[in-house]
């Protein structure tokens, strides 16, 4: 232990007297302001233990004088949010879809709620812009299997398609090929017929052969002219929109196996107001009727 304080020649700073291989440690203590804050923090933390939840126990924890809980805060914040929305939700509940469209304020509310609900529930299949995809309907266009009015959309969302709801919208196209209802060459002819329906060039002989086949097997749902029927969810075969693709292969595959998608029922999962808001939002994509 050095009895006298030694100063480093280069820096003029005191050394601690510790030396390693001729290098002496400079005595540069922590700045006083830093230490001051450090001690203040210690004092503060003691107060914190008393006031706030701090120490874990075996089955619980010390709750502190304030009995503060972030979990309660979240619950309270959510409740406050629900209360803030309650009036508008109530208004939405009471209004018909037509009234919502006429009331700019209510429409804006419905659009905002619909957008959030769409993003949470619908985008996995229909896409974030409602553009759909192979086997998933595009909600932007003017082609609707089950109708494109506000009421139709609301109903489709509520009951779903081929869903578990007893009231579900449902249609089942037979798998003409897979189940052996028609012969492969008949399906080839029908494919040409459907191509012909959508005003594309098709093998005239095959079309002539398939006319009777179509009337017997398809027209009950798709109508004689092939325009489809929304009552049965049967698509219009004369337009340019194809859920499972427009090529001959796509059409052939559809007649062969009769594919149909499933949309879950949202009634009971989403509140009636949210479904209304969703209907308004989807309707606003541009294809609404």
């Amino acid at each position, binding site marked *: 232990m050095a009895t006298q304080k030694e100063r480093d020649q280069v820096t003029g700073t005191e050394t601690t007297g510790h030396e390693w291989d001729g290098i002496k440690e400079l005595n540069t203590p922590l700045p006083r302001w830093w230490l001051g804050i450090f001690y203040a923090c210690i004092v503060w933390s003691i107060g914190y233990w008393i006031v706030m939840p701090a120490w874990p126990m075996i089955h619980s924890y010390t709750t502190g004088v304030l009995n503060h809980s972030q979990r309660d805060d979240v619950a309270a914040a959510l409740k406050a949010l629900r209360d803030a929305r309650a009036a508008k939700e109530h208004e939405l509940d009471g209004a018909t879809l037509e009234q919502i469209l006429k009331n700019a304020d209510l429409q804006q509310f419905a659009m905002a709620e619909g957008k959030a609900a769409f993003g949470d529930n619908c985008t996995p299949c229909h896409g974030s*812009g409602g*553009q759909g995809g192979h086997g998933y309907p595009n909600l932007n266009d003017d082609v609707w299997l089950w109708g494109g009015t506000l009421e139709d959309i609301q109903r489709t969302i509520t009951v779903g398609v081929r869903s578990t709801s007893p009231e579900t919208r449902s249609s089942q196209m037979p798998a003409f090929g897979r189940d052996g209802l028609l012969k492969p060459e008949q399906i080839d002819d029908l494919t040409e017929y459907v191509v012909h329906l959508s005003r594309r060039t098709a093998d005239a002989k095959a079309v002539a052969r398939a006319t009777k086949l179509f009337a017997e097997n398809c027209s009950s749902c798709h109508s004689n002219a092939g325009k489809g029927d929304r009552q049965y969810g049967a698509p219009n075969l004369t337009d*340019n929109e194809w859920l499972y693709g427009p090529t001959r292969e796509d059409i052939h595959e559809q007649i062969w196996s009769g594919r149909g998608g499933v949309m879950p029922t949202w009634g009971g999962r989403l509140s009636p107001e949210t479904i209304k808001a969703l209907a308004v939002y989807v309707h606003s994509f541009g294809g609404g009727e």
Partner: protein
Amino acid sequence: MHTVISARDTAPMAAEGVARSDAEASNSAANRKFYKARVPIYPKMVQGRYRRIKWIVMAITMAIYYLVPWIRWDRGPFSPHQAVLVDMTHERFYFFFIEIWPQEVYYVTGLLIMAAVGLFLASALFGRLWCGYACPQTVWTDLFIFVENLIEGDRSARIRLAKESWGSSKIAKRVSKHATWLIIAVATGGAWVFYFTDAPTLAHDLAHGTAPIGVYAFMALLTFTTYSLGGLMREQVCTYMCPWPRIQGAMMDNEALSVTYRADRGEPRGPHKKGDSWQGRGSCIDCNQCVAACPMGIDIRDGAQLECINCGLCIDACDEVMLKIGQPLRLIAYDTDANVARRARGERARFRLIRPRTILYSVVLVIVGSLMMFGLSTRRTIDLDVLRDRNPNFVTLADGSVRNGYTLKVMNRADQGRDFWLTIRGIQPRAVNLIGVGNVSLPAKLAVGPDKVRTLRVLLTVAPHDWQNSHQRILFSVADAEHHETRTVRAVFVSGDPR
């Protein structure tokens, strides 16, 4: 404020009637040490021409700072009546007759370029005028030193006080000094917030304690910065924090005016005894008064240096001494390095204000200024943004038509609501649907409120025979009712061309 240079009995004399100050240039680069704490600087109060100019500039700049938010400007019933206002909430910047929207931030860019080039020009002509007189750091530090001088006395008294042990008198002086500083700091932060909200309303709210929390937060922040930068850190801000001292090295040349010790006249320096001849020696009696007066803690006789803010206080200090010893004034003066060299060679000193770089800076300044004036005088009061939907990119309809969606932002920068007419060229849409309005025929009338943006979604449906290619250029136009102003924006109609 007593500025008598008195010869104390014990003090060494530099010349008859002039005491030698023991001031040291503690902040000059040569004397700063890595490991050493800052040596406090106690600038001595001086009187003279430059001190006077500094008082006047301080009064003017402070008046501008405190009064500008209170100037009113009539902009009609729908806009605020504050001449200078940065309205964050409504995203507007008002400056007298100018109103800038966030989309026009290039005007602010132009203003900043002008400020920078103006600073370059001023530096090339007159040196660091900004640093010495107009910079807020200088003005507020000057004010803080003035307060310190008022409460604790001049340089020697302040040094004595610092060395004194803590007693009631020292505590009283220190407390009142810091309290006054804090009051100034609060007033500084308090004035800043008025630039961002309607000043009379905010003043009322502040008086009643009902102003928004953000206002108090900003006041607290600026109080802290004013107090610490102006009161505690002072010259360290200029020496360590500010980039300008570094930049100005490139901006100045040896023809730029700067506070200069005329070594040709002053050297060789040394104390002067009464009766001695002035022949064969310089006018500098090495009294160190220039060092004592320097707020930056440097010795101007070391030549031009980064730390010098060119405030001219050493000129005043030296002139007082020169007057006393009967030597010509301006041993330290606004001069150029080139002139010092010229005099040393026996040539005549002259000031070359017109030099390539000053011409260049002036030309740039005039060009940018003219562009700004042109832009502002021909500024549109109507504007349009078009954002094409990309999700989905386009929609094919049952009959083969294709629909594209666009979000239009129609901006009305006038003080009253107006009706605009929307037209679309370059394509013949089968239907134009404004979401929320319904199908419309072109030109479509759009009412936009005063100083407002109206956002509209437009759906264009085009039949297959009406487009030429998969990406067709189209034009959206909005015009006011009298067709004085039209704004046209290019967009594209995407069909994917499924024909």
